[in-house]
């Protein structure tokens, strides 16, 4: 596993030297869950437990190591049920705001410079929670057009939308005990 991650990190380095397109894309999805905010937040902040609620995730392996700046950091390797992987870095866990921030280091989604937040807020009704998942990213193809098929803005938005819609719907099921 360590070797794989090191290899993925090495492969990733040259990518950051490329320019990406100038228009970042956004996907924002919200769902209301009939569960206590503390319970919802506990599930979301568990960075190594995404397989508990996301239906596309088969396993989630946490890793602690130094990041590119020599700082201690938390990473996770998501292995998807279709065999693909996504390697992510935890950027921040804010208990006061019930807000998680992470970025994709490398993975199968057709995106570049992906950063995301997941936030839990109490309401609208008592005992309910509202979860908002926001992603900012660029398309996969980072150079001058023409853009190869599957690497354009729409492909990136569609892929992230699929991840968010599927994940939030299943999170609701898991937390509401259906």
């Amino acid at each position: 596993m360590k070797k794989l991650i090191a290899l993925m990190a090495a492969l990733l380095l040259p990518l950051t030297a490329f320019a990406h397109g100038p228009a970042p894309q956004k996907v924002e999805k919200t769902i209301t869950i009939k569960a206590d905010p503390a319970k919802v937040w506990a599930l979301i902040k568990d960075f190594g437990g995404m397989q508990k609620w996301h239906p596309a995730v088969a396993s989630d392996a946490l890793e602690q190591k130094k990041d590119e700046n020599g700082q201690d950091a938390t990473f996770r390797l998501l292995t998807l049920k279709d065999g693909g992987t996504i390697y992510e870095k935890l950027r921040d866990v804010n208990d006061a705001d019930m807000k998680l921030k992470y970025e994709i280091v490398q993975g199968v989604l057709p995106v570049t410079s992906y950063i995301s937040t997941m936030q839990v807020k109490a309401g609208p009704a008592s005992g309910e929670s509202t979860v908002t998942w926001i992603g900012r990213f660029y398309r996969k193809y980072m150079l001058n057009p023409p853009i190869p098929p599957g690497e354009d803005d729409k492909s990136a938005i569609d892929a992230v939308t699929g991840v968010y819609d599927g994940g939030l719907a299943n999170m609701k099921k898991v937390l509401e005990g259906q």
Partner: protein
Amino acid sequence: MKPFPLIFSTLLLALVLAGEASAAPFAYITNQGSDNVSVIDLASEKVIATITVGKAPVGVAAAPALQRVYISNVDSNSISIIDMAHNVMLGEIALDGTPVGLVLSPDEKTLFVADWFQDRIMAFDTADTQRHRDIAIGKAPAGMAVSPDGTRLFVANRDSDDIAVIDARNLKILGRIAVGKHPFGLAISPDGKRLYAVNVYANSVSVIDAHAGVVSATIPVGEHPYCAAVSTDGSRVYVTNTQGDSVAVIDAAADRVVATIAVAAFPEGIAYNARKVYVASWSDDTVSVIDTSTNQVVGSIPTGKRSRAFGQFIAEAPH
């Protein structure tokens, strides 16, 4: 009775003049996700007009003397020209490139356009936008600034990690200044002495002696900073930390951050006007208003989708 109308009209004139003098300027906020520009009256801090422009507008340069605002549309490869007097589109310049950064010479005779993909700056005569002169530049040119005397154009080459210094009249490259990783936004002090380059990947701001062309200090700021604005007296520099959801306040005399202000999510474009700072929030679709005397957020103005306002976006409009 004869003198009365004269006095009255003098009074009226005085009132009208006073009204004009105190009228606040307007902010022109590019909304990348809704293909329009929100015009904010800074007196009321409300959007008074929304103007449809090209696809994915990002850059903005306001020309108060010409009463025009130039907008770069990255997805439709064009520059939209807005009439400030009537808040309508005057026209659109089609380009064979991808415009991002925009800046005007102080006399408003030249509009500089950074072409992201073709690594060049296009210089347009604002009186005749049919033709342009080109300058080949470093990789992914982004933010630009012109010295207050109009002699120098500075360009942040994001993927070359340097700032190009260009003679703004003959468009010759005079030199390059190495800065931190991925410089994006540039701002220059009103006296033209200090240039600030915002280094996105280095989480820092390079302070450049604009005359000597050397970096005099590097100031750590917040996460993934994008843009900077300098106060009118030059004493403070405000920097948007896009992934920190905050604005760093730099004391220019001490070259260090003296405050960090939480603002709406993913702040990008920033401008200073009359002791307030206006910040476009890409993720929350608002402009945050900061009172610089207290460093508190005192307002939030709803705009269009994915507000960026990359450039000099505040100007006085006619009345």
